[in-house]
């Protein structure tokens, strides 16, 4: 999963100095549950400050000022241990490039998709996503006892600028022909369950039998999920 947030949209103040001027970035590794727990307690906070500190070991210090009935606010600090990733490994964490997909299609309303996949989860561990360039998508499961397919129509296909040639491969493609990939249904459900708000744009790119790449765009945040296909 790759997620990008524009810092201006979230922070009133933002100060950072990377490793060097040309490499104005810091790569940190942490346990997401710690951060989520720290931020959860900040639901009703007056102010939240996040600092990278290095007292005994590198930590992300989340300092939360909470309202209280007394004259002074309550202060809570969470020191989350982080690992600083050395520059030589930064390449491992580059934004993955958009794959050379066969079909790109807008997703149906996520809520609908989620309720469909949730029911399918009880019947099968894997799900097939297939779509074509005519705006049609099918979600299929198949077991010994039953097969279920849900059809979506008129979804629309996003236009991609022809920078890396995907356009050409897609253009020469038969509009009705389906590109498909079988993926782990739980992974798909995790993705769908995590979406609380409807994104401004939601689409997926399918590389037949290889990978499904989801892109979800919100105002402040962009999310990309890569789910590899099962054998």
């Amino acid at each position, binding site marked *: 999963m790759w997620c990008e947030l524009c810092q201006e949209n979230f922070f009133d103040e933002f100060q950072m100095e990377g490793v060097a001027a040309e490499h104005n970035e810091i790569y940190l590794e942490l346990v997401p549950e710690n951060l989520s727990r720290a931020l959860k307690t900040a639901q009703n906070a007056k102010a939240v400050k996040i600092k990278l500190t290095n007292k005994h070991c*590198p930590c992300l210090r989340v300092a939360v000022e909470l309202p209280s009935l007394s004259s002074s606010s309550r202060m*809570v*600090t*969470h*020191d989350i*241990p982080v690992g600083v990733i050395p520059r030589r490994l930064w390449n491992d964490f580059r934004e993955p490039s958009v794959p050379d997909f066969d079909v790109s299609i807008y997703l149906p309303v996520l809520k609908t998709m989620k309720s469909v996949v949730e029911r399918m989860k009880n019947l099968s561990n894997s799900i097939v996503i297939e779509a074509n360039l005519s705006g049609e998508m099918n979600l299929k499961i198949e077991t010994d006892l039953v097969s279920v397919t849900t059809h979506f129509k008129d979804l629309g296909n996003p236009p991609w600028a022809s920078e890396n040639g995907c356009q050409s491969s897609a253009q020469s493609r038969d509009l009705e022909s389906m590109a498909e990939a079988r993926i782990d249904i739980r992974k798909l459900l995790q993705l769908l369950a995590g979406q609380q708000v409807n994104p401004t744009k939601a689409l997926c790119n399918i590389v037949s039998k290889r990978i499904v790449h989801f892109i979800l765009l919100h105002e402040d945040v962009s999310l990309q999920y890569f789910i590899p296909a099962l054998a």
Partner: protein
Amino acid sequence: MGGWGGGHLWTPPPSPLGLGGDTLCPVRGVTSVCVCPPQLSLRAVNSSRSAFASFLFAPLFFQLYEARGPPPHLELCRCKVLMKSFLGVFRSLPSLEKTVGKCLILLKPRASRLVVQLHCKYGVTKTHNLTFQECERLQAVFDTQRCASSLCAPARVLAEAVVHFPQTLAEVTLAAGPGGKISLRNHVEDEAEPGKTMVTELWLAEDEFQTAAVAPGSRITFCLKEFRGLLTFAEASNLPLTVHYDVPGRPVIFTLEDAVLEVHLVLATLSDPESNLQPPMANGVSHLPAPSDEFADDLGSYMIAMEPPSTYEEGSGVPPIPPFPLCIPDPAESDTEEEEEEEEEEEGAVLGTPPHKKFRSLFFGSVLAPGEPSLAPTLEVLAEDSDGEY
């Protein structure tokens, strides 16, 4: 054996007994509750004797309290029942609230039975017969007067403070910091690598407390899980919670009090041999030398344990109580190492606490104010509230 008859309990559910029982349950490892007339008291101690809780219901709490038979001797009136059985009676508090009109508790020493009878709607009566065993008086010897520090705050303030810590956290450290602030911090085990554990610290200002008389720089570490149970009860009863503590290693005592109920929770605290060498608390997380893991002075040494009657008969040859520490030394219990091991294990093996959804915020709307005309001389069911909510 005299026949101590029994007592009628208050009318309206929900059942504070059930709620009290639920609160005692987190005193992990408890298998018995000691019911000690003439007041009704529920007491529990955990297997490693690092936690003791008591709920004392004054006679005024009840609609009718009657002891029948010859005047009871103290030894005869103590009984212990299995916690599980007792809680089973009050299993589903919300439905109890809706259906139960009255609850009758009878103690039948001759039959070794504790009878709990729930009088419900539509003339349904559920009778639970619990077997009890006689036991010695279970009492932790503690004296809040001897504690150097005390704090009193509405339960809500403390509940809002502990919410920042994960449910699975075992121990928490309470400390008096600079500027009169009180801090709570999760306790990190020695063995944990310093770079791996998240540390959360919360500061409360002095004026959030109703009273705060603390020794500056004082600090104690105790089991959060057991404290949470009491906190839930305190919130439900809307009573302020008082914390009395002394130096690390001496127990911390939590109390709730009102006209008809007295609750005590006594927890052992981590001893800290280096407590005198604490660096001044800076305005932030201070990384103090890690205290030793041993619970020295375990609570056992503060308690009159459940021993054969001959040793602890009231008024008989009890060994003189030394002025410090406050306990009756029991040579049979001096196997402290074994107990420390037990406690270490107990702390390490974090047993499941009953899910918190069992604790209901009911209670104390139902407490009868003293002077209500409900002390009838008979055991007959009193006229029930015909237009009651249930």
